[in-house]
């Protein structure tokens, strides 16, 4: 696998690869986001008890599940960079942190807005919500560490250590609703064979999850390209790119 990957481990090649992939991700995610939003907001039926405001689920669930996936992806990238000394993995990890933080914030905010009418409170200090808040702080800590060090490689290694320490939190978030009696409900689509949701609601939800995933992919590519540029500022190929912009 290593040999096959090797050419892509060169910054310039991976920058080009990211550039060719980006439009596909960008276009498909925009299309699916529009479809998903319209489907979820206007076409999906109302829920039996929660009426119309259950529609928040179409953004709450994608941001929440994917913010955890982004964290795991970030931790994987850190691990790869530590084991194989692959600098590009550092760039990928650095690119993902702000995206994960934004999604976590979105999930918390939409959750609070949703909790107000349905539970009767925007916030309770139970296991799920608290551990999820810690996830947001972890993301912010990682971002802060990335910015604290002048040297990018150093910053990545420092942030990487915090990322790996924080992985402990992920299973706690995931299983908190099963381990403790929390106010938060258990997962809706944990069992694919028999999801606890009518199919007219499930399909738009799955569409939205896919749309968010593609959007995260596109954002990661954009930020990854930036990180590669910043980390290879002395390379001739970056200098050439910069010269073109400078001329304009």
């Amino acid at each position: 696998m290593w040999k096959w990957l090797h050419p892509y481990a060169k910054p310039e090649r991976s920058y080009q690869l990211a550039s060719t992939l980006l439009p596909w991700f960008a276009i498909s995610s925009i299309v699916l986001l529009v479809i998903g939003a319209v489907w979820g907001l206007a076409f999906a039926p109302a829920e039996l008890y929660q009426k119309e405001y259950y529609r928040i689920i179409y953004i709450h669930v994608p941001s929440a599940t994917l913010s955890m996936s982004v964290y795991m992806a970030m931790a994987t990238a850190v691990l790869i960079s530590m084991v194989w000394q692959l600098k590009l993995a550092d760039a990928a990890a650095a690119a993902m942190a702000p995206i994960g933080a934004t999604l976590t914030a979105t999930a918390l905010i939409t959750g609070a807005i949703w909790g107000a009418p349905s539970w009767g409170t925007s916030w309770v200090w139970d296991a799920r919500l608290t551990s999820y808040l810690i996830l947001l702080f972890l993301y912010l800590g990682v971002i802060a560490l990335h910015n604290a060090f002048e040297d990018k490689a150093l910053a990545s290694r420092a942030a990487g250590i915090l990322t790996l320490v924080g992985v402990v939190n992920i299973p706690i978030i995931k299983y908190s609703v099963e381990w403790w009696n929390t106010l938060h409900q258990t997962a809706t689509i944990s069992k694919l064979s028999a999801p606890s949701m009518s199919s007219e609601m499930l399909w738009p939800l799955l569409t939205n999850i896919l749309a968010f995933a593609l959007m995260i992919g596109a954002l990661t590519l954009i930020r990854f390209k930036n990180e590669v540029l910043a980390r290879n500022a002395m390379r001739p190929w970056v200098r050439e790119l910069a010269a073109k912009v400078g001329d304009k």
Partner: protein
Amino acid sequence: MSSLLRAHQLTCIREDRVLFDELSFTVNAGDLIQIEGANGAGKTSLLRLLAGLSLPYEGEVRYQEQAITKCREDFYQDLTFIGHLAGVKGELTAIENLSFSLSLQQDNTDNIDNAIERVSLSGFEDSYASHLSAGQNRRIALARLWQSTSKIWILDEPFTAIDKAGVAQLEQLFLDHIAHGGAIVFTSHQELQIANQSAQRINLEDLI
């Protein structure tokens, strides 16, 4: 015979400035190498790279033909590094400082009075380092060289704040060390006798 320590195509970048690019050299037993260059040329950075305290942007440092990141324990067994900062605690006495740093380095702590005597600190053994002068603090740090069992010495400005007699003693120690199959990499701003006689020089400014 294989080299003791080898710098293999080291590239060092600090704050987006290239200090040196693809620098390679070997340190063999019996070598005395002086690193030269103006302030900010990267002398300290190079020494820290060689000691494995910082990682190069590219390239690697090898101890007995093995990357030092893969054989830290063996390498550090064989390395004595004295940096800019002496690593001497003001709250401890001279002798406590010395015996602690020796035991960290797994060096001999038996004949410790001898080392204290060699650096002319006899009578100050039980004084707190904070009560001693800068030069004396430096001597506490250097005292461990007399007890050192390691082959490779990496010394950043070892002669700073040391008086003439001290410099002469230290130079003699350097010569003894390389004569016994050791190797020394050091930086210095002072004009030294041994440097003229037996040292190889690496000038960082010539490389760019």
